[in-house]
């Protein structure tokens, strides 16, 4: 019984940051109508920025994280404005942005390689202690990660549903032309939304950096998982990504427990394929 609860909790913890990553991707799709294949790479940049501020420059943890996330936010907006915006909707195959994000991803990986080197670098844990409650063991670092992730998700939800700006984002996602007629500067919305998505990646990256270490290719493994979360939850649905993220975390946790770590991803991906068979639009997605 304790094993089950332990796995459940571990699953929720990892699910929470999967959810953060999934939300970023789903928002990018919902508003900009494109798939960002460099999503994982912004995660990696977030981790490196955090590393730069906290280790190289020696700032304390919390300001470093905030600065790192802000830096990636700006980076995301710049890339949107100069690389993506000119291309949206052009070319015979309107999926040009996909290729551009692919190239952007390679670019980021290599810049990271050049700037910070190829070897793994580390960032110390925020908190070293281990908590034991009723036979369940948890590293407090992981609890912090989960807590920050959940707070982030709540903030995002509040922004989207309650603020004027959030409405502008929803409106732009649903009907760009009408949105501009309402006075919404859709180009700006695209830029800021992309920035928010990359910032979310950066948050996840900074949180996980102490646990998994940092290297230029860390984004690759997280990339597909973010996609899985986004699609299973339903493209464009923030709530869907949250639910799907938590589910993925829990499934992975149990799969690792009973099948070993090599196979956990296989199970996850296989489930996605099965899911596509029965409900391609995702849990909360619209059937087309």
């Amino acid at each position: 019984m304790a094993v089950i609860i332990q796995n459940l909790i571990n699953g929720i913890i990892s699910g929470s940051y999967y959810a953060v990553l999934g939300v970023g991707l789903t928002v990018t799709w919902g508003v900009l109508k494109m798939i960002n294949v460099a999503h994982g790479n912004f995660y990696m940049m977030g981790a490196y920025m955090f590393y730069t501020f906290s280790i190289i420059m020696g700032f304390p943890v919390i300001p470093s994280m905030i600065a790192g996330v802000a830096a990636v936010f700006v980076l995301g907006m710049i890339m949107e404005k100069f690389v993506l915006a000119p291309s949206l909707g052009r070319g015979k195959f309107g999926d040009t942005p996909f290729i551009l994000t692919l190239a952007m991803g390679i670019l980021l990986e290599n810049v990271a390689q050049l700037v910070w080197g190829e070897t793994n670098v580390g960032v110390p844990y925020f908190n070293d202690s281990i908590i034991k409650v009723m036979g369940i063991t948890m590293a407090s670092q992981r609890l912090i990660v989960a807590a920050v992730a959940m707070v982030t998700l709540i903030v995002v939800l509040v922004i989207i549903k309650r603020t004027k700006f959030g409405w502008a984002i929803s409106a732009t996602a649903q009907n760009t032309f009408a949105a501009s007629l309402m006075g919404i500067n859709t180009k700006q919305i695209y830029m800021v939304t992309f920035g928010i998505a990359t910032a979310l990646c950066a948050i996840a990256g900074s949180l996980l950096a102490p646990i998994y270490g940092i290297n230029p290719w860390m984004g690759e493994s997280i990339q597909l998982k973010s996609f899985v979360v986004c699609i299973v939850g339903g493209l464009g649905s923030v709530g869907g990504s949250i639910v799907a993220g938590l589910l993925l975390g829990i499934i992975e946790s149990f799969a690792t427990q009973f099948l070993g770590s090599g196979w956990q991803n296989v199970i996850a991906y296989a489930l996605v394929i099965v899911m596509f068979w029965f409900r391609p639009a995702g849990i909360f997605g619209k059937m087309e």
Partner: protein
Amino acid sequence: MNTYKIFKFFDKSKSKAAISLAFFAVLLMMPIILRISSYRNESYVEGVLILCMLWAAMTLSWNLLMGYMGIWSLAQQVFFGIAAYTSSMMNYYLHLSPWVGFIVGPLCATFVGLLVAIPVLRLKAAPYIIIATMCLSEIVRLIFINLVKWTRGELGFWQMEPFNSILGINFNGADKIPYYYLIFIIFAAIALVCALLAKSSTGLAMKAIRDSQEAAESLGVDIVKTKIKVFLISSYLAGFCGVFFAHYIMILTPTDVFGQGLMTEFIAMNVFGGMATIRGPIFGAFFITIIMETLQGIDDYKLLIYALILIITTLILPNGILNSKAQFIKWGNKVKNFRIHKKVELKEFSSKSDSIKLVNNRIIS
């Protein structure tokens, strides 16, 4: 005006055929040309060209799905890899000749092609197909990594033999010529198959599906049959490339062969060169492979430059270099208009007339 004439020349089908023949003829003669001119490093150039042809063939096979049919299948390397591993493992464990690999490998690849096609049939929108195929590739990659006992996982499988001698031609030495001509045959054959397919009724059906599935269906195109057919052909062709690769490079790892890195290269080559043509993938593959080889010296910056090239080309020429004739003409016209406009402006100002009119109204707003 001159640019227009040049394009007109390239448009004639006779010129097109002539250029294609010339291209293949030069490729065929390359090793001989290299030896005659006593260029010291023939083996190196041949090696590069072998890779060019290999990747060109792969990109052509992917182009069938992506360029002609509009299906964002990111699993092409899986067909490649499955054939490679099948041939290698059968060679090592069952002592089958690598030449038999050419029969078994593509068949296995085709089987996997069918497996990939089935979920893809269900999905209509690009992002779903992208994710599904990426997941499938990852599943295959992870399976091969985990079944270390048979595949040796990430340690690499190098136990396969090179092609055994046939008709007295020895494949074992440092001489690349046998490999060169083998891949040349494969490459030329694949190019021919793709060209024929594109011109056939299936080719028309493919393009119809790409442009509008509903319209195609209403016109009587059997979508399911066409998609499956093209998947089977595409994976079969990719299989041949995989078998060659295995017994040429002589080492396979799951990540190298099933990973998205390889797939990304095919995407880049196809997009850069231009989709839905035969010359596009070939041009893209050759260009990118050669550039990457030339940049080997600046190893650190190689991928960076690669990414920048991709970004810039996609922004300026979203249809690929060889498909952008219309765009080049437009630019030519714009430059022409600009020059005429400038001339008129100067004339009007200097004549001090009362009303100033501009020749091309478009320039005002």
